[in-house]
């Protein structure tokens, strides 16, 4: 089963250089562990939500807006694509993510899992 781990966190809170160094070390360790276990498929980190631009077309009219799609406290910050046995294992990997301590990890199964006909659970 493939899952996307979506990292959400409050990117308006400043991170101290020491904190940042610690976090990058922990992210590197987590990514290394996922690689070793053959779980990680790919990942990207996004620039802060302040850099976001939102576009939509309504009634043939294109609107371009500064800022992210949703005005929430915790913003989408990056993703990790993983492949593992099932949701139980995905939850374990998400709990190990350093981002789970400061923010929230949303786990979403990929649409292509449906082809595998293994269902949502297990």
């Amino acid at each position: 089963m493939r899952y996307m781990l979506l990292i959400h966190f409050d990117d308006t809170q400043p991170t101290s250089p020491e904190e940042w160094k610690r976090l990058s070390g922990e992210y590197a360790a987590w990514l290394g562990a996922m690689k070793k276990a053959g779980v990680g498929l790919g990942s990207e980190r996004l620039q802060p939500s302040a850099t976001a631009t939102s576009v939509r077309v309504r009634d043939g009219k294109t609107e371009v807006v500064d800022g992210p799609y949703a005005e929430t406290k915790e913003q989408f910050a990056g993703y990790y694509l993983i492949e593992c046995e099932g949701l139980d294992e995905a939850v374990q990997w998400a709990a190990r993510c350093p981002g789970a301590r400061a923010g929230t990890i949303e786990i979403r199964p990929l649409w292509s899992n449906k082809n595998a006909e293994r269902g949502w659970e297990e």
Partner: protein
Amino acid sequence: MAGKSEQPEAAAQRAAERVARESYGRLLAFLAARTRDVAGAEDALAEAFASALKLWPAEGVPANPPAWLLTVARRRQIDAARRRQTRTGGEDHLKLIADEMEEAAATPNEIPDRRLALMFACAHPAIERSARSPLILQTVLGFTAADIASAFLIPPAAMSQRLVRAKARIKEAGIPFRVPDADEIAERLDTVLEAIYATYSKGWGEIGEGSAQSLAEEAIWLAQLVAALLPAEPEAKAMLALMLYAEARRPARRGAGGAYIPLEEQDTGAWDAAHIARAEDLLRQATGIGASGRYQIEAAIQSAHVARRLAGADTWPAILALYDHLFALTASPVVALNRAVALAEIDGPAAGLAALEPLGEDKRLLDYQPYWAARGHLAARAGRREDARSSLTLALGLAADPAVRAYLRTELEKLETRRP
């Protein structure tokens, strides 16, 4: 609190909570034993508790609250069976409930204890393994699906589904509510003990406080129940002993600021002496009964660690021999890992590492944090800095617990400052 008018409600609430704590499993086991309809019995019992909270504040708490709840719950079961009567089986259901009532009437002051039979049904080999511990927690202790889900790190909806499926299976597959006969009990007891031990591990594995710790307490409570109900089974006693050895160390495994402290560095003065004494006594009783199983060996290993740390005895050779024995029994890679760590204490870190390295190929250990932590420590002691760094980094990436992460980070920093 808003004055005296709330007092009867508070008293009723407390009484209901006390009965729930002490008698929930007993009531449920009795209500479900004949019909094997666990979900139906849960509904009936939930309605009985709701009635209690409504009626007790006005009428006072009855003299025998469990009997009161049982009577009301049985009435609900009968109503439900009548409503279903048009469907097949309604009559049978009523007959079974009538049998139950007769039995309870014969022993008015004590509800027959069917909890052990209930546990054997919950941990039946025909029930999905991952559902067994949750099912026991729910039926014997009355945990909600949401509580169990958060304790087991499972999404609540998935946990509810799992529990519903397991209950349907008990009913449909005809899983009996009975304690197996002497000739099959050893094998069947394994799944019951495994389910309880899995609950304890959940409460121990994550160092965190709160729900994890209370889960450990519930598991010990269940283990005590099983050991008391099956006094002739050495493994039931040995498992309880094993849990108590671990529990005795709980106060010592966290330092200031919640830092993780490994066994070797723990202040033995903070160990719970009463737990250890009970564990030693249980282990002696188990050994006296006979045949050494998995839990007996594991408890003996813990006893050897206690003798080593408390009395300064060199018990490492005994520990190594016990791990050999345990590995022959289980062939578990986790046992092989612990054996390698014991070997390092006798023949040095290089020997331990040589035993550990082949295990790194085992897929089951690839995401097993303790393996990489142990390998990192031994490599550091053997002066293999690169291996130590990469192993400890993997362990850090696999640790979800902040205390363990902090500990591993410190170990990594020590590695950088250590002379090559």
